[in-house]
């Protein structure tokens, strides 16, 4: 049986891992390779690296650290940040990443998703979505969320974009619920359930993990394929073995 994945997310800026609350006031959390190895040893099923400054500044994610990570890591990892073309993606994949994740550039030019799927297969193509509920009750996507000063609200409804991204060739969706990100009150169950209903490819929950019970809750109630978290792991507020232990007790299929 396919197991549910626990995925630490390492936000990278200038070759360092950073993570802030609600995407603001980033504080340095540690060396990339050091953290990557720590999570691998603790039983992480996969890692995600977001170069959070890449899209706003219009530059491609730097490759040097990807290669360093690929040398030491024997679990899969994906890289996000400023991938705007097939050539950008190829450079990242050839540096050793298993998947590439596109967010803002896919909103600017949705055809990018189709081009990436054609070039590398849907299994390499992750579409990351930053989503927030507006005053009218609709969830809508946000762009350039790595930089609070440049973050833009778009008219695109999150559920519509999830459907469209799959049609174009997304092999996996990471839904980052910005309203719950960094506040440790649990994943956005309501939004994730709504997205799950329209998402036929693997869906990864992001934003809100604070205690081990939140992971059980998101798997049991939202049927997501993986759960992503950052600050709670970086600060060791909770550990991956503790999360897996409580998932095992709850009867969720996981890798030991």
């Amino acid at each position, binding site marked *: *049986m*396919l*197991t*549910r*994945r626990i995925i630490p997310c390492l936000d990278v800026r200038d070759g360092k891992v950073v993570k802030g609350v609600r995407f603001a006031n980033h504080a340095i959390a540690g060396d990339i390779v050091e953290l990557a190895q720590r999570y*691998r040893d603790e039983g992480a*099923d*996969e890692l995600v690296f977001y170069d959070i400054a890449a899209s706003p500044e219009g530059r491609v994610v730097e490759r040097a650290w990807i*290669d360093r990570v*690929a*040398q030491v890591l*024997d*679990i*899969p990892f994906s890289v996000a940040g400023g991938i705007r073309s097939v050539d950008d993606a*190829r450079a990242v*994949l*050839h*540096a*050793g990443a*298993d998947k590439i994740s596109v967010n803002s550039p896919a909103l600017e030019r949705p055809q990018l998703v189709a081009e990436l799927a054609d*070039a*590398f*297969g*849907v*299994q*390499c193509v992750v579409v990351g979505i930053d989503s927030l509920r507006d005053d009218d009750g609709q969830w809508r996507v946000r762009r350039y969320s790595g930089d609070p000063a440049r973050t833009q609200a778009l008219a695109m409804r999150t559920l519509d974009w999830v459907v469209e991204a799959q049609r174009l060739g997304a*092999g*996996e969706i990471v839904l980052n619920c910005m309203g719950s990100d960094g506040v440790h009150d649990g994943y956005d169950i309501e939004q994730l359930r709504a997205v799950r209903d329209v998402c*036929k*490819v*693997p869906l990864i929950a992001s934003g809100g993990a604070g205690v081990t019970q939140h992971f059980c809750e998101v798997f049991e109630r939202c049927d997501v*394929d*993986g759960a992503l978290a950052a600050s709670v792991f970086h600060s060791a507020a909770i550990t991956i073995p503790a999360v897996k232990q409580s998932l095992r007790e709850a009867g969720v299929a996981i*890798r*030991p």
Partner: protein
Amino acid sequence: MAAVALVDAGGANIGSVRYALLRLGVESRLTIDADTLRAASHVILPGVGAAAAGMARLRELRLIEVVRNLTQPVLGLCLGMQLLFEHSEEGDTPCLGLLPGTLRRLKGGGVRVPHMGWNRLRIERAHRLLYGIESGAHMYFVHSYAADVGSATLASCEHGGEFSAVVQSRNFFGAQFHPERSAAAGARLLSNFLEL
């Protein structure tokens, strides 16, 4: 000593496979040269992407007959394994025909495709390639097509139905998962292969 050769057929995972071998202390050579492949002690055919593109690339490199006629241990990984079979439904693609069977799109059982993540092996037939790897070992899979369980199957896996996870016929071996990304169990499979 003859080197371990990695067929440089454009698969994006080729760097990861090379690093996985380095972690085992083994240097490998990335090559598209027929003589280098024939002289290698072991040949690995990595691969990520679509079957038709994978076969087209081998044809372009004039490596189809070269790979078919290799006599040393050959290991296909993920798409590289799929290309060893007779045919793939993906793009209705004729493949190398070194293993019996056809690749079909995963479906049924309400499972999600691509099959992406860690899943358990079931050992179907003992083989030195699987030394130290038990039924229940978790490997990392990422694929949308799979081969039915058949005479070549060494280990199976289940995702909406059983399919071949590790295969062997003569000197040709294949793993549907990514051993280079499957932690200790994956490393064990690679080191077993290099011992063959």
